[in-house]
């Protein structure tokens, strides 16, 4: 496998099979092997970064092998600027998870790490799959190890949480499966030839409007459950609270992003007209999620639940950015996916650390930890500030880009969403104050041990990344920019087609206006710009996209 992408994808699975052969009693060997495998995978993913060519919008490092030729299904993988950082996030978080679980998993260690590595394989696969059915298979494959991780290694109410998680997710994804079949059937019907599940082929196809609405909801439901978008979020607090620390980190850090990624990769470009029509609906739902999640987080007595509800709030920002459908907001959304993975991953990790020592997560049981666990306090506060969106840390950049992008198309929604930023400061600082400051109220907290070596090693890379993204976001934005431009070009060029099955029609902005959607950037002026060569060299925004908003604003 000369292609680093193939290696990154398959190595965790091979590693999982190898670990499955280790005798069950060799717990230390199992842990070491899992750590080494996940680190090698991370190394390989850095090679992807190295061979990734900036400025190219299309898919890179592709590999394609015919798989089920009768149905036009191929094994095709590749990355572009949208999936690149998500793949890296996955490979970064997996060793972190294995380190954090070093001493906190007390039974069936082998099963746990095997499940984690299979999960990593499935998650990377879902991000790099360029064939719709291949994506679906990886998307479903994620469920089985996650179900086992929650159900076997979880807390007291784990069974309820695991089954709820599974049923919610599969209900959405099975309807999406029907959508996939129908979409490919339409493609086959409109252009006789051989059917194709390739994403790039499906991008080129335009779907009649009545079918688009059905298909849009079939896909969007699956992804909205995964995100989770209000009001489909009820599985998330249960799953997070009951999952073991490692499971929560992966669930919040990567698996929720499958939903937002799905919107970007499939829903927007496949069904541009339906997406435009229902963009406001999804924007409103995200804003409700942002505010509702933040308010509910505020009143949680349990730290893990608080972080879980904060995820509902933060993911609301991502969906809002996606459905604002402009360059700034979508780049912000992608960055925010990574940010949320880092900061929430770190928060879950740290909450797990004190739970391991005290077997409680209730805010009321703590106080004054800053004196007894100084190093831990530093880490926790950095993670909390990153989650709040303090300038200089990653959360600020993502939220700012999303809000400034959204403001141009939906000023009301953007304004309302901004209250979410304030609320997040409120509940996070509330938690920090309760847990870390004040006198040590509970004598049991006097003798509590500070972070151990494995926990430090696990959390430091996350902190480094938070600062890096916060200080120099262009490293990250630069690579995603061309792909986002191409995505928007695809969406915009097809959004104004008449709603019949034809290809290549001249643009007619009137149609878009009649659909009741006020486009983010006026189409008539923006499309030539987006497709022009200068657009590719548009300077990346730093520190916070102010220049972009000026240029885009001028074009209106």
């Amino acid at each position, binding site marked *: 496998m000369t292609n680093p992408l193939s290696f990154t994808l398959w190595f965790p699975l091979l590693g999982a099979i190898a670990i499955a052969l280790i005798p069950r009693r060799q717990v230390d060997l199992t842990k070491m092997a899992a750590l080494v495998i996940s680190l090698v995978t991370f190394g390989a993913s850095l090679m992807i970064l190295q061979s990734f060519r900036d400025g190219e919008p299309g898919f890179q490092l592709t590999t394609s092998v015919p798989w089920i030729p*009768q149905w036009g299904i191929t094994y095709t993988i590749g990355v572009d600027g949208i999936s690149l950082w998500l793949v890296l996030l996955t490979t970064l978080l997996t060793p972190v998870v294995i380190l954090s679980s070093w001493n906190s998993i007390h039974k069936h260690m082998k099963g746990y790490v095997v499940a984690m590595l299979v999960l990593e394989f499935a998650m990377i696969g879902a991000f790099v799959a360029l064939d719709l059915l291949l994506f679906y298979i990886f998307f479903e*494959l994620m469920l*089985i190890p996650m*179900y*086992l991780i929650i159900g076997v290694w979880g807390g007291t109410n784990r069974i309820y949480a695991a*089954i709820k998680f599974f*049923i919610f997710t599969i209900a959405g994804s099975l309807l999406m499966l029907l959508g996939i079949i129908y979409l490919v*059937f339409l493609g086959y019907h409109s252009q006789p030839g051989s059917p194709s599940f390739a994403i790039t082929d499906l991008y080129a196809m335009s779907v009649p409007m009545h079918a688009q609405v059905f298909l849009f909801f079939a896909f969007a439901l699956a992804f909205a459950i995964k995100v989770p978008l209000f009001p489909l979020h009820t599985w998330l607090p249960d799953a997070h609270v009951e999952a073991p620390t490692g499971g929560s980190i992966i669930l919040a850090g990567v698996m929720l992003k499958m939903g937002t990624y799905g919107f970007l990769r499939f829903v927007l470009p496949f069904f541009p007209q339906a997406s435009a029509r229902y963009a406001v609906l999804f924007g409103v739902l995200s804003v409700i999620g942002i505010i509702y999640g933040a308010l509910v987080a505020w009143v949680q007595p349990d730290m893990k639940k608080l972080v879980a509800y904060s995820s509902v709030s933060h993911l609301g920002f991502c969906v809002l950015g996606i459905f604002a459908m402009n360059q700034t907001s979508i780049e912000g959304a992608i960055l925010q996916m990574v940010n949320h993975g880092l900061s929430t991953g770190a928060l879950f990790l740290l909450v797990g650390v004190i739970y391991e020592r005290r077997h409680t997560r209730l805010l009321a049981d703590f106080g004054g930890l800053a004196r007894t666990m100084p190093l831990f306090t530093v880490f926790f506060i950095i993670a909390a500030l990153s989650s709040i969106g303090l300038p200089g840390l990653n959360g600020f950049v993502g939220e700012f880009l999303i809000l400034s992008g959204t403001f141009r198309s939906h000023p009301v929604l953007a304004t309302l969403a901004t209250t979410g930023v304030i609320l997040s400061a409120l509940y996070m600082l509330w938690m920090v104050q309760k847990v870390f400051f004040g006198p040590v109220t509970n004598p049991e907290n006097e003798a509590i041990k500070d972070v151990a070596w494995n926990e430090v090693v696990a959390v430091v890379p996350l902190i480094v990344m938070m600062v890096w993204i916060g200080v120099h976001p262009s490293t990250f934005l630069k690579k995603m920019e061309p792909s986002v431009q191409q995505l928007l070009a695809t969406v915009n060029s097809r959004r104004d087609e008449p709603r019949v099955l034809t290809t290549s029609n001249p643009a007619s902005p009137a149609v878009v206006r009649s659909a009741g959607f006020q486009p983010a950037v006026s189409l008539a002026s923006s499309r030539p710009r987006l497709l022009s060569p200068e657009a590719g060299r548009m300077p990346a925004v730093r520190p916070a996209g102010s220049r972009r908003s000026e240029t885009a604003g001028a074009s209106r």
Partner: protein
Amino acid sequence: MMLNPILEPGWLNAILPEILLALFGMLLMLLEAFAPRLRGIFAPITVIAIVITAWAEFMVQGGTFFGGTYQLSPLTRMFDFTFLLATLLAAMFAREYLARERIEGGEFYALLLWGTIGMMMMAKGLDLLIVILGLELLSICIFVLVGYHRRLAISNEASLKYFLMGAFATGFILYGTALFYGAAGSTNVTDLARFMSTASPSDPMLTIAFILLIAGLGFKLALAPFHAWAPDVYQGAPTPIAGWLSVAPKAATLITLIRLLTAMMPVAEQARWTSILAVLAVASMVVGNFVAIAQRDLKRMLAYSGIAHVGYMTIAVLTVRADAVAAVAIYAITYALMNIGAFGVVSLLQKNQNDAQTLSDIAGLGFRKPFYGFALAIFMFSLSGLPPTAGFISKFYVFKVAVDSGHLTLALIGILTSIVSVYYYLRVVYYLYMKEAEDLTPVASGGIFSTGALLISIVGILLIGLYPTPLFEAGAQAAQTLFMNR
């Protein structure tokens, strides 16, 4: 009627598989009578018989024999392989079951082999009478096999139940055939097809005939509302037989149904016979999946899940398309692997036939007995249609056929009821891995035969799930031959 020589050249090769199975069955009966001490090798003999028969399948490529009443094609061969696979797995699981229950005997294996002949006749028969002959041969073998545990009341009860219901079903099929004969003047499917191309769809006699036929075949398929016997019979039947019974006769009946429906096509569509089937399919999916939730006994749960699976397959059948035939064939193979495998695990866990395996009995099995737990988990994931198992591929195929032929609503109902089914399949996995064991008496390890059968099932499921292309090629090739002599 012309008196042509009925035996076309090559006729002996054409029925060579059937002849071989019959001879091996007789051999087993003779060994039972004269050398009962050889009982230990009856199962190996059965396995050898099946392997040789599978080889004999290749002696004839295709053609019509016995005066147009017996057709061989890639399609019938594919179904023959499904029957042989089911019988192979059942025989391998049965060996240890029979040894444990101390009821080993040559007639058990002989009846399995002869029942397989009956199914092959159903698949190949181009004449309704041949089909009925095969169906009866199969039914008689099943009556005896279900009641094979003759000292157990539950087994006898199951046998009697199946016998009484089966007798009625055969009666319905015969009535239906008689009415078709009255209308078309022939029981031959080819003649029937010719008659149907000009028949009036509004003829009530034809519709009554079809309904009678469906009532009879629906019984064999355990299609709702003709399903009531299934849970009781599966519970009472020797467990490996229950697995076999839940798969092989259904596959044979489905190929018969496809053949008949294809022959009757213009009328079947216009007289809305396919709508009748659609109603039955929906009823099966709903009843099977919802009632299965309430079951605690694994065998009864699998019985209801089987009703639902027949519902899925019926969706494909009623589209009457070339790829529907392939979809059903592939579904049948997959279903044989996963369902007989699941019954096999239950059989291995039982201490005796009366020891019902409920959900709480398998608690913690995944860690107490990792191989059985893993196998059962794979079967459950495959039954619920999750990738990367064969169950996903075959379910995907069925729904794809439904969407492609415009039956979007049926596909939607199928998807929605599958979501329900995930709950009870997953519950098994939950008991396997997430529940502490209550009963800590060690589970005996199976011997080489049952381990082999489980391995065949697991490898088959994963192989089809990951690389279905060769099977699709075979299926597509087979499907074309059904429409060949329309």
